């Protein structure tokens, strides 16, 4: 192993650190987990939640980056992608909320009473759009 190899390793290490810190800051700022755990009144589990997040990111990153095939059959894939989809849905919902889309729209169009329907409609739209994009295009 030569000096440039070691330089490359150090570069990769620091790159990973920067990316994961940015990723976690993004998730924390969007507030996916605090909203979920407030909803479920599991506030005393913050430490465990952080550990699980760290493990989850490490696991997902490793199996994707090294393209490891796991013996989980179709049911494992379905469970993994189902929860992945739930999380991405939460993420996009939280992003919309952080950008104050719904409060601004509801003030502008005076649709306060219909807000639940607006949210359900946007969720359905996301689901249908995803199906159309993944299957029919």
């Amino acid at each position: 192993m030569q000096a440039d190899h070691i330089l490359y390793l150090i570069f990769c290490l620091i790159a990973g650190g920067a990316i994961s810190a940015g990723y976690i800051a993004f998730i924390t700022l969007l507030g996916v987990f605090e909203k979920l755990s407030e909803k479920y009144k599991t506030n005393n589990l913050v430490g465990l939640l952080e550990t699980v997040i760290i493990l989850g990111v490490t696991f997902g990153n490793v199996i994707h980056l090294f393209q490891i095939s796991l013996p989980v059959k179709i049911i494992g894939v379905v469970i993994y992608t189902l929860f992945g989809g739930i999380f991405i849905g939460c993420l996009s919902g939280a992003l919309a909320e952080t950008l104050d889309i719904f409060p601004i729209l509801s003030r502008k169009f005076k649709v306060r009473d219909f807000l639940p329907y607006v949210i359900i409609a946007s969720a359905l739209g996301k689901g249908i759009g995803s199906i159309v994009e993944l299957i029919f295009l």
Partner: protein
Amino acid sequence: MERVTLYFALEQSILVASRKVHIEDIATIYCRNKDFYHQVAKLEVTTMPDGEQSQVVVTAMKIIQLISNLSDKIHIESIGNPETIIYYKNLKDGSKTKSKLKAVFLMVLAFIGTGYSIMTYNEEVNTRDLLFNIYELFTKESATANNIHVNLGLIAYSVGLTLGMIIFFNHGINRKNTDDPTPLQVQMRLYEQEVNECIIIDNTREKKTIDAS
């Protein structure tokens, strides 16, 4: 006879386990006259609605009314929040299993969801090819998937990813209680305060608060 000053400070929000709520449950009280202190502490504020969980907003004005009904000789000072939210949670065995199941669901979501979203990120920016290109940039050799040094770089990236999160969450082995709370904890408390404010405003507008009358 001289009037005795009684100070009370309402909490911002409080979780109770019994349906009968007394003043001592939702506020800290100080009074030099011990008789008044004990009488006031045991005053009943409200009875929580039945059910698994519920919440009511009580104003400081209501507490003042209750105490001044007790005796004319007390001078009342409120130094806490003008309103407080009382959360009631029925702690039966059934609800405990339910909340455990919810916690398990949250953990599974955290594990799989974050893993899946880091995969989408890696896919989006094409991390593999990027790291291969960087290898070629550093070493002037062409990178192949079976090259041990290239794969060491991928491992270093993964280790860096984990280390970055541990540093961000301040989550090492030598974590002490005196350390700053983690970013997630700070965000959680901020969010809790916003929720409390929202509940208070909503209840006040709909005139559902337990107020002086």
